[in-house]
C-alpha cells in the first residue's frame, strides 16, 4: 500500500499549546483524508481529535484545512492532493476558536443563522392550506441550490471578511437568508432585506470568491449575496452605507463611461456556456478590462467545474433579465457583477 506523510496542526486544551506533528499513514487508492486520519487515530495515536460521522459529505462534520484550504476531509481523495511526496498539511478550520486539535467551536458560525432568523416565517393570521402550498417550479429552481447547504462551515472558515469582523453574518447564513427572501411561503421578505442590509450583512462582503471555492455543495454563497444586494436595492432599501456606496460607484462608472464598455460585451455575447472564451476573444476597447489577468483567473476558476460554469451562466442570465426589466437596475446590477469579476 502507498504511504503518505501528514503534518497535523494540533492543539492541547490543557496546556494551551499548539504544535505540529508528523504521521505516516498507509492508504489504498480510493481512500480519503478522513480514512487516513482514522487510521492514524486507531492504530497510532488515539489522542488525535476531529469530528466526523457520515463519511459521505452530507453531515457537515469534517471540514478542516487541507494544504491551506478548507474542505471536507471525507470528500478529499488522498491521490488528488498528493504533490511530489510532500506531506499533506492538515489544520483546523479558520475564523473559529480551536477546542482541541482539529475540533473548533462552531457556535459563532451557527449564531449567524439565528441572528438572520433563517427559518420560514409564515403569513400571519392565516391557517396553512389543508394540503401543500403550491410552489412554482421556476421559483423553486431559483433557491433550491442554496438549500443544499450542509452547514459545514468551510466557507466561513475561509471568508476574508469574517477574519476581520467576527460579527459578519458570513456566507452560509447569508445564502440561507437568500432562500427565505425568495421563498414565496415566507412573509418577511422586506424585513429580512432590511436586516441583511445593515452592518455585518450583505454590503460587507468583499466578493473575494473564497466561499464559492470552499463550498463542497452547490450553494454559491457569494452569488446569493450579490442577488440579495440587487433585491434590496429594488425594494428601495438604500439608506445604508453599502447601497450608498454602490450608487456612488454606479454614478462614477457611468461618468467614466466604463460601465457600458464593461457590460456591453457581456450582454451581447449572450448567455451561452462558452461565452467566456468568446468574450476574451474580443480585443478592442473596454474589453481590455475583461482581459485583465484577474478576470481570466476568475473565469478559469469558474470554468473549472460544473458549478462554476453554472455560476457564470447565471450571471449572464441575470444581467439580461435585469436589463429587460429596468435599465437603471441593470446598470447597478451589472456594475456589481463586473466589479465582482474584476476584483480578482
Amino acid at each position, binding site marked *: 500500500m502507498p504511504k503518505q506523510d501528514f503534518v497535523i496542526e494540533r492543539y492541547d486544551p490543557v496546556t494551551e499549546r499548539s504544535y505540529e506533528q508528523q504521521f505516516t499513514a498507509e492508504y489504498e487508492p480510493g481512500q480519503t483524508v478522513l480514512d487516513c486520519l482514522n487510521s492514524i487515530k486507531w492504530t497510532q495515536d488515539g489522542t488525535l481529535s476531529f469530528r466526523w460521522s457520515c463519511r459521505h459529505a452530507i453531515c457537515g462534520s469534517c471540514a478542516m484545512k487541507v494544504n491551506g484550504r478548507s474542505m471536507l476531509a471525507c470528500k478529499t481523495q488522498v491521490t488528488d492532493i498528493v504533490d511530489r511526496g510532500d506531506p499533506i498539511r492538515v489544520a483546523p478550520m479558520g475564523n473559529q476558536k480551536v477546542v482541541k486539535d482539529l475540533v473548533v467551536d462552531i457556535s459563532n458560525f451557527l449564531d449567524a443563522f439565528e441572528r438572520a432568523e433563517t427559518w420560514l416565517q409564515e403569513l400571519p393570521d392565516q391557517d396553512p392550506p389543508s394540503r*401543500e402550498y*403550491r410552489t412554482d417550479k421556476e421559483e*423553486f429552481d431559483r433557491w433550491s441550490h442554496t438549500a443544499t447547504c450542509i452547514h459545514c462551515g468551510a466557507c466561513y472558515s475561509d471568508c476574508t471578511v469574517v477574519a476581520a469582523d467576527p460579527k459578519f453574518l458570513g456566507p452560509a447564513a447569508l445564502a440561507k437568508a437568500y432562500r427565505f427572501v425568495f421563498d414565496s411561503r415566507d412573509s418577511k421578505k422586506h424585513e429580512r432585506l432590511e436586516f441583511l442590509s445593515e452592518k455585518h450583512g450583505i454590503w460587507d462582503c468583499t466578493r473575494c470568491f473564497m466561499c464559492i471555492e470552499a463550498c463542497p455543495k452547490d450553494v454559491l454563497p457569494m452569488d446569493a449575496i450579490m442577488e440579495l444586494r440587487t433585491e434590496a436595492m429594488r425594494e428601495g432599501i438604500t439608506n445604508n452605507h453599502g447601497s450608498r456606496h454602490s450608487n456612488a460607484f454606479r454614478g462614477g462608472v457611468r461618468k467614466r463611461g466604463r460601465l457600458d464598455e464593461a457590460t456591453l460585451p457581456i450582454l451581447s455575447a449572450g448567455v451561452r456556456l462558452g461565452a467566456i472564451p468568446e468574450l476574451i476573444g474580443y480585443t478592442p476597447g473596454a474589453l481590455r478590462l475583461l482581459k485583465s489577468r484577474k478576470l481570466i483567473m476568475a473565469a478559469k476558476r469558474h470554468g473549472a467545474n460544473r458549478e462554476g460554469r453554472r455560476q457564470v451562466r447565471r450571471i449572464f442570465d441575470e444581467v439580461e433579465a435585469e436589463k429587460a426589466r429596468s435599465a437603471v437596475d441593470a446598470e447597478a446590477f451589472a456594475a456589481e457583477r463586473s466589479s465582482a469579476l474584476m476584483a480578482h
Partner: protein
Amino acid sequence: MLEHGVLIVGSGLAGMRAALEVSEDPDLDVALLTKVHPLRSHSGAAQGGIAASLNNSNDEDSWELHMYDTVKGADFLADQNAAEILAREAPENIFELEHWGCAFSRLENGLIAQRRFGGHTQPRAVYAADRTGHALLTVLFEQLFRRGVKVYSEWYALDLVLRDNVCQGVVVYDILTGQIDAIAAKAVLFATGGYGRAFQTTTNAAASTGDGIVMAYRAGIPLEDMEFVQFHPTGLQGSGILLSEAARGEGAHILNAEGRRFMEDYAPERMELAPRDIVARAEQTEIDEGRGVTDKKDSVFMDFSPIGEERIRYALPSVLHLARDFAGIDPLQAPVPIQPTAHYSMGGIPCDVDGMVRLKDQNDTPIVGFYAAGECSCVSVHGANRLGTNSLLEAVVFGRRAGRAIRTAVRDLAPTRIEEGDLQRAVAEVDRLLKGDGPERAGAIRQELREVMMIDCGVFRTRPQLENCLSTLKNLQERYQRIAIDDKGWQFNTDLVEAIELGHMLEYAEVIITGALAREESRGGHFRKDFPTRDDQRWHKHTLAYRTDDGPRLAYADVNMQPQYRDPFPLEERKY
C-alpha cells in the same frame, strides 16, 4: 444535577419531531440532548424519499395500499395496528413539514413531486432531489431554533435510570468538558438511531452504535427483533457507502469475476431489478463461491457502460459523484466494485404506537415516563424488512405521536429523583476506561467484531457460523475488559467516546447473534441457509431478548393483527 420536565435523547428526525411537539405546550420544559450536533444526525444521509399516499403523480394510491405494501414488505412480521397508523397519518405529516418550509421537489403544477420506490406499488415517495433526509433534518432544526428549545449538543447519554419501572432520568457526559452529570426528567424519549456500525460494511454513520438500545437493555428492558438487519446490495466496496437504488433502475449491470451477469441464475426475469434482499444474497453467493472481483475477491462489479454516458450524467449525477469522491473511481471509465452493506436496523426498544416503552410481556407492562421513537424503537412497523422511504416516515409519524403522548402524560407524572448511586455504573465505566492500562486496543477489537459480524451474522447465516460468531464475540468482550485508550484527558475525548460505543456494540451484537441462532427460519432480513424458508407456524412472532449475566434470555410475543379501520391482511407468500 440538572432537571427538565421532558428530556429527548437523540436529535435525528424522530427526536426533533418529538421535541417540537412537546414544545407546543409553552409550560413544558423540554430539552434535547445529542452526541452529535442536530444537523449532523444520521437522518441527514437519507437520499431516496419519504412515503405518503398523496396521489400527486397518480390517483390510485390510498393509505390501505400503502399499509399493504408495508406489511408485505415486512414479511408479515409488522404489527398491523402500527403499519396502519404509519400509512394513515403519512399525508398530514408531509403537509405539515411542507408548511414549515421543507424544500421538497415539485411537479410542474407546483405540487410536491412523487416517484416510485422499491417495494411500493404506487409512486408515493416524496423527495427532495437525492437529499430527502437532509431537507427534512434542516427544516426540523430551523423550527427548533425558532422555538428556542434547549439543546445539549455534543452531550453523550451514558445510562438510563429506572426505579420500579418508572423512569427517573439519564446519566450524561458533556463531551466538551468531560463532566459526568445526571438529568432528572419526568419523561425521557430515546431517539438514538440504529445499530448498523457493528458490521464491517455499512451505510450507517459513525454515530449509529445502538447506544440507546443498549442503555434500555442494561436497565432491564428487553430488545425486540434485533436479528433483523437489512442489507442493501449496492454499497461501495470497502466503505459500504450507499450507491443509490437508481443505478439498478437505470439499467446498470452487475457482473462477477467471469464478467457474467449472474443475476440470470437467481432471478432470470427481473435480473438486476429483483428486490434488494434477493440481489444482496445473489452477490454474497458469488463472492462466497470465489467469483468476487478485485484483489480481495470481496465484491462484484457494477457496470454502467450499458446506460451510456449522456444518460448517466443526466440521471445519475449523484452516483457519479459518490463513486468519484469516495472510491476514486469514474463510472464512465471503469466498473465500480460493490458489496452488500448493512443498511437498516429493524429491531430495537419495544414500544406501543404512542412511543411508550412496554415490555410486551403478558401484562404488556409499561415503563412509566420512558418513550422511544425512530430507528432505535421497534413499534413494529417494519417487521422483518423495512421498505425504503418508510423509515423517515416512521421517525416523523411516531416522533410526533410520542411527543403528543408525552405532552399529556407528563402533567400527571410525579417528580423524579436521581441519587448519587445512580451515577455509579457510568462513573465506574468511564473511570475504568480512562485508567485502563491493559494490552488491548479498542480499534483492533472493533475491527474484529465488525468483520466477524459481517461474515458470520451477515447476509447469510447458519448454525455453525452463528456459533462461531458467538464464541468470537465472547472472546472480544473479554478482551474489551483489558483495553487501554491513549487519551486520558477530559476535554473532547473522542477516544473515550469511541471506546464506550464499542462496549455498546459488543453488547447488542450478542443479542443479534442469539436471536438469529434461535430463529430457525428465513424471513425478511434474516436468512438462515440451513432453514431457507419462512415458517409461520413456529416463527410468526416477535423475539424479545432480556439481559442476564449469562447472556440474552429469549422470550416471544405475538404479532398484532388488529388494525383499527380495516381487516388485517392475512399472511401470504412475500413474492414480487
